[in-house]
Structure formats: structure tokens, C-alpha cells
């Protein structure tokens, strides 16, 4: 009975309109962001279906001496490398590594950074001071150097690469999270939550973080781009994803030897990195405008 009554009531209620929906409306009008989004969807889609299109052992890492160093043609639209592997195939497959490293590294940085930053912002005092000074130290070391140090200490593997890039990009998240928490903490609804007897940890989780989420999304999107660059840099230096795997950075590194005569070997992986990072940045900027209520016209 009661249930029925409530359900009929519910059907008469207003349609929910979330902030995400409004942000999407805002985002749709930003051409750059939409271009970024479309490119990104293509890249992610390609990375996802790559194993269905190509066989890893034969197409991606298998040598084919007769097809060595072929300039781009209809058959190999990006040409082939010094071992006769199709560069386009390797770039498509390589997206899996670059995106995975970028996303996982940022995820690590995000979780650690938000936990530390939110706690620092909410608790304040000595704890905040210590966390923020450690952040200062971390950000004063160039991130590539830091990642090199981490990889050298932990050993060479894809997982360690993710960890290294993740640690190197934690500091900005701590900062963003702390700043966001400081702003939200002063709002009266947080005080209201305390007035109804909610414990601190729940206030952070239920009221503070959801209200900082847009800034964190923006930061994360932009950071994936720089994480991809860091990962490529490490691979270029031979510290990243191990050899036969088609990581864009290591493709650049091997192509470097032939740059005078076979420039396409470095050109295409380079373009791949550039387009991916550019589309992430375009999207990130667009998101910032769409999610920031202050910029709304």
C-alpha cells in the first residue's frame, strides 16, 4: 500500500537534472574539446580492438626481413621498421601501452594524492604542513629524473614504469585536492553536516569530495597527457616497457638511428604521441570551462 503510494508520487516528481548533464551541454559548444574527445574515442577504440585486428606475435613483434624499411605505401600506410614490422600496426597496438601507463599512473597519483590532500586540507595543522612540504620537495625534482630513480631502484617492468610515473605526478593532485577541500570546508553545508552529528571522515567522503570532483577530473585528464609523455621519455631512454613491445617511446628510440634516411620511422610514433596528448589537453581545457561554474556565461 504504502509502497504503491510512494511510487505513484515518485512518478509525478521532477525529472532529475544532474550537474554532469549541464556540463555536457556546456562542453558540446566547445569545438576544441569535441575534437579532442572524438580523437580520444578513436584512439581508445583502436587500442581496445587492436588484438582483434592484429596478431601480437606475428603482426606486431614478428620480424619480416623482406619487408624491411619500406617507405609508406598503400600496403603499409606508415611504412615498416628496421625489422620489417608494420609501423601503423605497432602504433595502434602501442596505444594500449601508452594509454594504460598514462591511466594507471594517474590513477595511482589520484588515489594517493586525493587521500593525502583531502586529509591535509581537512585536518590542517602540523600534518598539513608536513604533507605540503614533502610535496614541495617532490615538485622541485624534475619528474623524469624522479621516475628514472624509481625505475632504477625497482627494476625495469611495465608495472614499475606505471608506479614511477604515478609517484612523479602525485604532488599536483595533493595540491588540487587540498585547495578544493579548503574552499569547500568553509561552506555552510559542511557546518550543517557537523551540526547533525556526522563524523569527520564521512563529511569528507559524502560532502567534500563530491563537490571537488570536477576540479579533480580536469586535473586528471590533463595529467594523463603528461604521464604519457613521461612514459614515452622513459621508454626512449630504455627504462620503460621492455624491448619488443611496441611502446611509442621505444619506437622513437629505435627509429632515431635511421632518422636521416628513414624519417617516417620517427615521424609517425611522434605524431601519435602528439595527437593523443593534444586531444587530452583539448578535452581537459574544455572540461575545465564546462565544469567551472564561475566561467559560465
Amino acid at each position, binding site marked *: 500500500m504504502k509502497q504503491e503510494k*510512494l511510487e505513484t*508520487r515518485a512518478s509525478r*516528481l521532477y525529472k*532529475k*537534472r544532474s*550537474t554532469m548533464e549541464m556540463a555536457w551541454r556546456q562542453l558540446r559548444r566547445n569545438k576544441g574539446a569535441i575534437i579532442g574527445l572524438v580523437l580520444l574515442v578513436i584512439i581508445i577504440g583502436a587500442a581496445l580492438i587492436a588484438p582483434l585486428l592484429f596478431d601480437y606475435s606475428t603482426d606486431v613483434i614478428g620480424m619480416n626481413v623482406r619487408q624491411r624499411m619500406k617507405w609508406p605505401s598503400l600496403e603499409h600506410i606508415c611504412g615498416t621498421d628496421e625489422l620489417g614490422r608494420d609501423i601503423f600496426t605497432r602504433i595502434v597496438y602501442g596505444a594500449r601501452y601508452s594509454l594504460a601507463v598514462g591511466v594507471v599512473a594517474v590513477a595511482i597519483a589520484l588515489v594517493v594524492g586525493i587521500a593525502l590532500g583531502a586529509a591535509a586540507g581537512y585536518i590542517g595543522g602540523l600534518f598539513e604542513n608536513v604533507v605540503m612540504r614533502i610535496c614541495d620537495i617532490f615538485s622541485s625534482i624534475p619528474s623524469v629524473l624522479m621516475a628514472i630513480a624509481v625505475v632504477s631502484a625497482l627494476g625495469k617492468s611495465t608495472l614499475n614504469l606505471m608506479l614511477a610515473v604515478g609517484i612523479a605526478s602525485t604532488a599536483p593532485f595533493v595540491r588540487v585536492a587540498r585547495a578544493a577541500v579548503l574552499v569547500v570546508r568553509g561552506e555552510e*553545508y559542511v*557546518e550543517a*553536516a557537523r551540526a547533525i*552529528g556526522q563524523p569527520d571522515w564521512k563529511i569528507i567522503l559524502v560532502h567534500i569530495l563530491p563537490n571537488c570532483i570536477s576540479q579533480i577530473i580536469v586535473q586528471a585528464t590533463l595529467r594523463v597527457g603528461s604521464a604519457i609523455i613521461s612514459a614515452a621519455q622513459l621508454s626512449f631512454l630504455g627504462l620503460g616497457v621492455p624491448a619488443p613491445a611496441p611502446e611509442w617511446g621505444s619506437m622513437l628510440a629505435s627509429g632515431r638511428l635511421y632518422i636521416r634516411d628513414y624519417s617516417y620511422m620517427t615521424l609517425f610514433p611522434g605524431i601519435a604521441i602528439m595527437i593523443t596528448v593534444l586531444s587530452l589537453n583539448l578535452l581537459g581545457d574544455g572540461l575545465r570551462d564546462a565544469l567551472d561554474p564561475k566561467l559560465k556565461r
Partner: protein
Amino acid sequence: MADNILEVRHLKKYFKTSRGMLHAVDDINFTLERKKTLGLVGESGCGKSTTGRAILRLLEPTSGEIIFEGKDLNKLSKTQMRHMRKDMQIIFQDPFSSLDPKKTVSQIIAEPIKENKIITDKLLREERVLELMETVGLAERYINTYPHELDGGRRQRIGIARALAMEPKLIVCDEPVSALDVSIQAQILNLLKDLQEKLGLTYIFITHDLSVVNHFSDDIAVMYLGQIVEKAPAEELFDNPIHPYTQALLSAIPIPELGHQRQRVALRGEITSPIEPPEECRFAKRCLMCNPEICKASVPVLMEVSPSHFVACPLKQKEMGLLK
């Protein structure tokens, strides 16, 4: 003996600043009878909001006793205090920042009920939310809207419903209508008044608007720089203000009436800093009646000049023969 729900004794709240201790609330004493309203009036920075928050321990008081129904709140642990929160609630000034923008109306109103496990069944809880919405005059079609989709008056109603959700005995109203338009302001004031009668609530009504406080309160306490300078039943305070600051404040209200000639009680410029204030009357520097010998001798104390009428002005106390 009167049924006192709240007694505040020597309440102090100091804030540390780079230039010394800021005495935001400095030795406040009052008692509040059940089902009555105490108006706390004063200008910005007089410590009225801080007092309200310190009573609820949303700000930890520096010292003093807050005796609520016989228990000293200041002695309770954090967990014990959380349980006490059921009985004492707050309504905020700004209906735009006091509601979490990411939560729907029903989530906001249901939160205190859920948090304190008053009703655990989800459907019953929703029923209660609808009941509360009806109590505060919110149409039920708004149950799933977000605060930003509503206007100030409706948002303030949500804030009131949230405060009522746990059936509190005491509600601190911190400027609940000053952000609203006059026509809406009257709606909310009437609502608060009706609720008081219906639910037997006790209010501490904090405001800078004297005409509102006069309409709303049984007793009025006028605050100046962290101290109560005069406290009296509303009618008495308006008919017979004694402290020079109260007189100035009352004479400054613009009256929407033809041919009203205001007899302004003038004030001088300089305002005493609340940071490490000197041991003297804090109003002395702005007061035209000030007699340095008397006013700067010590910190004035509240004295009863007529039944229930307290004044902290050494000059007037002397005139009345209360002070030697």
C-alpha cells in the same frame, strides 16, 4: 522556578591572530526559558554568530559553561556531543551555501534522520521527508530537485526542514531571513513562528535587523564587540533603551513611514579593536556620553536596573545608584 532549557555562563571564544588574541566572544551570560525566543542583535563582527556556533560547539569555546537541560555541553566528549546534536540544531543565513549542491532535496532532509538512525527503513524515511516538506510548506514535487534549481525562499525552507528532521528542542537561527526579499522574508518568519507554537521550539534568533528581532523575540540581547551590553524583554528594550549603543542602534533604523522624524543618537568614529581589547568599556571610544574616569576604569558588568532589564553601562549604573 522558570523552566530553563539553556544556561550560558562566562562563555568565551578567542581566536589566535598574528597580532594577538581576538576576543570574539568575551564572557557572555544568559539563561533561556523553554519555548521562548532570545534575539541576539548586533552589527557585523560583534560576535553574535560566533556565540551561536559556540553554544552548539560547532566552534570549540575557549572557556565557559553551556548548560543544556542540566548537562554541561562543554564537558562532553566529541561522541557524546554528536548525540546531543539531535536536540539542538542550526538554520543558516545563506540559503545558497548551506545546502550541498550535489544532493537532492530529499537526500538533504533525510540525512540527519539517516545519520542518527532515527528511521532506518527507507520507505518510512521517505514518508517522513514528505511529511517534513509539508510542514515547512514545500510542494512534494520538489523532492528530487537540486537546491540550485530552487529560489532562496524555498531553499531556506529546505534548511528548516533539515533542522526539524531530528525534532530538536533548541534551534539557533543565524540570520535566517537576511538573504531573502521582504515578501519572502515575511513568509519564512511566519513559518518559524508557527513551528515554534506547534512544536514547542526554543529559538536563539541571531540577526542585525532590529525590526525583525523586535517582531520575533521575547527577550533581546544587544551585543557589542563580543559582550552583551543590554538585555531585556523585547518591548522594554524598544520602549526604554538604556545603553547608549542600544539607543544609537534603535535610532538608526529607517522607518517606512511618512513624516517620521528620527532623533539620531550620534556615534563617534573610532572602533575599539577586538584584538587584546583594553580593560574598559568597549563602546567608550564611540560613545558621546563617555566619561573617561568612569568608563575607562574597568570592564563594565551587566546589572539588573529593573526587573529582567540588564545593562552594562557604568555611567547609567552610577546614575541609578547601582554603582558607587
